[in-house]
């Protein structure tokens, strides 16, 4: 490279950084940077009425799993916390699996439409994706209520005589999360299926493979990157969900997000809330790293 070219490259890189600086400043100040403060707060001592006292303590992190009995002073596993983690985990997994089970046929359906029609179906799946999460949760709330659409239909059809009360149960949260996060599963699945070469299906059928075998041995392995992407896009926000469990769980069925809120807005224990936030962030980061590693391996494997 000649000195002039080298100079041009350097100028170009410098301009790239300069132009990106305003965005980076906003993000550092109001998105990424404050996360460090949460880390610091997780190692402080809780204040009397919320907030913190600036004294080092690992109490926040220990408090995630253990709690001290106020009368005997003995440490014991905090069952209440464990049940919240357990609920968050299995509800998120269930949501991920179920959105895949119904999302895959939907994505397949969209991808196999005629090109003109496809744009419309895609638009229809995108609208809920951009629609206010709170409004969608409220809409589900209305459907599931005792006097709501679901019970009206079920009782009208004579399937049940008494209204089923699902609201404020884990089932309601599961239905709600499936409803609000479904587009996040369908969109990446669609992107993967859209690139799928339908000639492979012909080849498989010509070789007398059954439909089930074709699905399992030909389609699923090829659209796997879409499955991984969709699963992470659904699992991550499900695990950190706040609005849906709050509205549909009615405060009784907490998930990690609500548990974190409880520590801060009700002023109970800020270091514990900070430690829980960091834990949630770490789990999400691990999931994303797994995805990135998988995505890189996938692209080199298929050329």
């Amino acid at each position, binding site marked *: 490279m000649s000195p002039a070219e080298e100079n041009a*490259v350097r100028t170009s*890189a410098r301009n*790239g*950084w300069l*132009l*990106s600086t*305003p*965005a*980076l400043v*906003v*993000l*550092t*100040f109001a*998105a*990424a940077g404050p*996360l460090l*403060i*949460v880390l610091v707060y997780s190692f402080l001592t809780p204040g009397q009425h919320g907030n913190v006292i600036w004294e080092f303590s690992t109490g926040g992190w220990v408090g995630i799993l253990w709690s001290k009995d106020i009368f005997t002073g003995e440490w014991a596993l905090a069952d209440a916390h464990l049940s919240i983690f357990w609920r968050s985990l299995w509800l998120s997994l269930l949501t991920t699996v179920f959105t895949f089970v*119904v999302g895959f*046929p*939907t994505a*397949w*359906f*969209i991808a*196999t439409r005629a090109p003109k029609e496809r744009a419309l179906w895609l*638009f*229809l*799946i995108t*609208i*809920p994706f*951009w*629609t*206010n*999460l*709170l*409004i969608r949760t*409220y*809409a589900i709330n209305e459907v599931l*209520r005792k006097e709501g*659409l679901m019970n009206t239909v079920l009782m009208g059809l004579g399937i049940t005589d008494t209204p089923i009360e699902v609201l404020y149960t884990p089932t309601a949260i599961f239905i709600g999360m499936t*409803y609000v996060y*479904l587009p996040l599963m369908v969109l990446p699945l669609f992107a993967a299926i859209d690139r799928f070469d*339908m000639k492979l299906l*012909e080849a498989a*059928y*010509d070789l007398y493979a059954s*439909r089930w075998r074709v699905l399992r041995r030909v389609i699923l392995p090829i659209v796997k990157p879409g499955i991984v992407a969709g699963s992470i896009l659904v699992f*991550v926000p499900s*695990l*950190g969900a706040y*609005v849906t469990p709050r509205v549909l769980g009615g405060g009784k069925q907490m998930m*990690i*997000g609500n548990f*974190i*809120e409880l520590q*801060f807005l009700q002023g109970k224990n800020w270091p514990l809330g900070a430690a829980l*936030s960091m834990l*949630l*962030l770490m789990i999400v980061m691990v999931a*994303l790293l797994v995805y990135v590693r998988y995505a890189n391996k996938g692209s080199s494997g298929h050329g």
Partner: protein
Amino acid sequence: MAERSFHVARLPGFATTAIIVFLALYLPIITLVVYSFNASTSLAVWGGFSLDWYAKAWANTQVKDATMRSLIIASFAALISTTVATMAALGTTRRRAFKGQTAIYVMINQPLMVPEIVTAVALMILFGLIKQATGIHGLGYLILAHSAFCIPFAYLPIRARLEGMDLTLETAAADLYATPWQTFRRVTLPLLAPGMIAGAMLAFVISLDDVVITEFVKSGGQDTLPTYMLGQLRRQLTPEINAISTMLLAVTVVLLTAFFLLTRKKD
């Protein structure tokens, strides 16, 4: 074999499932919209068509204030995030890959990766400290927080537009002795405008919809429309909430339709 290969992509039960999924996606929203026109106070019994709940919502000063606040925050957030995202997109496309470019990408997409509740808590602590130190409790905190998480949404369509743009026009302008600024102002910017408008609209929608971060960052009396609704959901519900939801939905659908028309590939 031609006949069979025609049905080759058809898998049993898939179309039925898809139709049920689309119905399940839209029925709750449609029900919500329909009941916003209900004359009765009940959310369960249909009492005839009326616009009463819209009038009631509009007469409610809390709703009016929250609407104004939402619109102000979303407008500023869209303006700020689109401006900085446009600069960042110009900085990270159409030039040789440079050192640290991946780091810039990661930073820009960071709000998409971190759970909202974690960012909300982080901002509550930081802004709480600043509020305490300065005694200033303006809307600025909300605008700043919204601007930050809107950046990736504004950035994506702008970057896509830039990558699809023809460089020859800019080269031609430079060959005709246009200064870099003239080239940018007269050639690049007009070509880029649809991407910027699309980015600003997405940012606006995203800001308008935010609940979690707003709920944690707002000071007393700074409810936006979504946080006002969240508060109302704890009380006795009336179709007023449906009316507010329907108005918000209308704004979103109009902006999204415009977005799709703007970014549609011409073929």
